[in-house]
């Protein structure tokens, strides 16, 4: 490992103001330098002696340079996220101050690459030059399902903007309006990204997740609960604050669960009024109802304004059970999985067509309203 002369010069320039970072401490008084690492301390060094001594703690020096000069951005979500990637201490999270790995431990791990998971993403941070690391890190990114794949089997990218196309369609070619739906396609990799490029790429795949994670880490995630969000709406969405309380529960159960979204719902009906449904275990905090939920809420607000009636219709017990199976198959998105000849499944297409032929006439389902 080597320290470049530029690194040393930069460090010396900063030293007179004092340096304290990731275990490296340098202070200067009237030309006398003191230097500390967690393992050693030196005092009364002149500049030449300081230079010489710094050569013996090069990991701390190159680490300082990477974070303070290359990454920068003190207090930003970008910096915190990149530090999280390599298990570095996160100084802006009070409760995490003592966590995180020390520099030598991280440096050992960075030679092999450190893996982290972010939703359906797998991130590896490693040294650019493994044999002779100068502290410069690069980041690789791919789908967790491809963790064991060879790069040659994947489509390899290096421009963050390519992530937009990856995020647009699911594996069946359908549009993904919800970026945090657990349907990100696999088969691709970004390699050798800089820290800024990694954050940008994730910004396209999972917009705002890093910013919200950072806010949550610092304990200042700003949550807008259902009533605040609903009451703020205007235009065609003005009606959503009329959605009954219990319907908001049904809506959360329908939309805001782990099977549908990687976000963990932090918003409730109101600040002091939790929804009955659990918010899920998703990795990303969800701080207010998203635009998909708002759009769907409008439909449900209109539907819930209808009166209920009692209907009479003829069904066998099996047919009644079959209705449940049909609803369940659509709700779980498993209609494509039902085999052509599996007539034992109530949601089988031929079973559904038979039911329609028998019970749905030209005027629709043969049901009679009996409460008029």
């Amino acid at each position, binding site marked *: 490992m080597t320290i470049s002369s530029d690194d040393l010069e930069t460090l010396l320039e900063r030293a007179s103001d004092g340096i304290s970072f990731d275990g490296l401490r340098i202070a200067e008084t009237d030309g006398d330098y003191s230097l500390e690492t967690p393992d050693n301390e030196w005092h009364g060094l002149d500049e030449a002696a300081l230079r010489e001594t710094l050569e013996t703690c090069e990991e701390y020096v190159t680490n300082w340079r990477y974070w303070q000069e290359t990454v920068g*951005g003190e207090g*930003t*979500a*970008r910096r915190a996220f990149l530090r999280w990637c390599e298990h570095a201490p996160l100084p802006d999270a009070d409760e995490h101050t003592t966590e995180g790995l020390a520099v030598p431990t991280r440096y050992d791990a960075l030679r092999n690459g450190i893996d982290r998971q972010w939703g359906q993403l797998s991130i590896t941070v490693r040294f650019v030059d493994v044999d002779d690391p100068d502290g410069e890190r690069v980041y690789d990114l791919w789908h967790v399902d491809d963790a064991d794949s060879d790069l040659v089997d994947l489509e390899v990218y290096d421009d963050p*903007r390519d992530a*937009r196309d990856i995020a*647009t*369609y699911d594996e069946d070619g359908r*549009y993904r*309006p*919800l*970026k*945090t739906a657990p349907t990100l396609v696999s088969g691709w990799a970004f390699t050798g990204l800089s820290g800024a490029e990694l954050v940008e790429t994730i*910004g396209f795949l999972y*917009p*705002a997740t*890093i*910013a*919200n994670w950072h*806010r949550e880490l610092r304990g200042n995630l*700003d949550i807008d609960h259902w009533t605040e969000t609903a009451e*703020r709406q*205007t*235009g065609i969405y003005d009606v959503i604050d009329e959605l009954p309380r219990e319907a908001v529960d049904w809506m959360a159960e329908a939309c805001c669960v782990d099977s549908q979204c990687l976000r963990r719902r932090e918003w409730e009906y109101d600040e002091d009024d939790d929804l009955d449904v659990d918010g899920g275990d998703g990795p990303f905090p969800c701080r*207010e109802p*998203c*635009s*998909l939920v708002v*759009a769907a809420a409008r439909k449900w607000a209109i539907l819930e304004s209808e009166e209920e009636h009692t209907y009479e219709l003829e069904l066998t017990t099996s047919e009644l059970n079959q209705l449940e199976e049909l609803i369940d198959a659509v709700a779980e998105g498993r209609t494509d999985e039902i085999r052509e000849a599996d007539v034992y499944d109530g949601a089988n297409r031929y079973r559904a067509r038979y039911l329609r032929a028998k019970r749905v006439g030209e005027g629709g389902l043969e049901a009679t309203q009996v409460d008029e």
Partner: protein
Amino acid sequence: MQALVIAAHGSHLNPDASDPTYAHADTIRETGAFDEVREAFWKEEPHFREVVRTLEADEVFVVPLFISEGYFTEQVIPRELRLDDWDPEKWDSDGTSASQATLEADDVGKTIHYCGPVGTHDAMTDVIVQRAETAMEDPDVGEGVGLSVVGHGTERNENSAKAIEYHSERIRDRDRFDEVEALFMDEEPEVDDVTDYFESDDIVVVPLFIADGYHTQEDIPEDMGLTEDYRLGWDVPAEVDGHRIWYTGAVGTEALMADVVLERATDAGADIGDARETVRDLAGSVADADHEPSAGTGAGD
């Protein structure tokens, strides 16, 4: 540090709706004029609501990629960005003259320069003319040609038509085209009767829409009689009632739109160096290289 946010509608149903937003943002990224450039949407992510927090810059220029001043630019975007002190009066606009308002987003500690929409900026007139040039593959197009600027139009918002009429008037004043007419989908005069409004044999039709979708790729071509069924596509030019109609879809996809975005930000005080020249060069080359005269891939919204 300064950041640019391009605020657009987006769609839950149509993946192409955001294409122009990304394209213009990418063009501006290439210029390096802003430390950060971010797309934000009403119907996609990052949502208007979340976008400002993804920025590191303290100085943020928000340019709505919308055609008209109205509901979205005056109510929805400022509200969702949490610009608490916003009031449409701050634009002091007659419906086409909004420039910018400087506001503090207290929750994130940033200064937001909230700009008028691209559609009503004077530079948009040039984009419409450039669209006519690319549609007809003729940089000197004008003589012997009628130009129709087509807008949605709606009884609900008078500003919707104002933007269309404003640019039509400006192009008319240039005396470049033989005839210039503003036509609409949902109000008189209607685009269905386009040939009634022109004597010129050649009519170039430029829809003042941001993205291609249901209206520009289905409604308008069928309404004008370019095709029986949008799925079959149409010719450019297409023969209708003895006229040749040159139609290629939404003006918002024109590369020069990035220049209008930059103009909006500059008017609001952004320091962009020579980025506009770069964008104009890029837009020119794109217009030359990527021109595809046929259209008709219906997208729906």
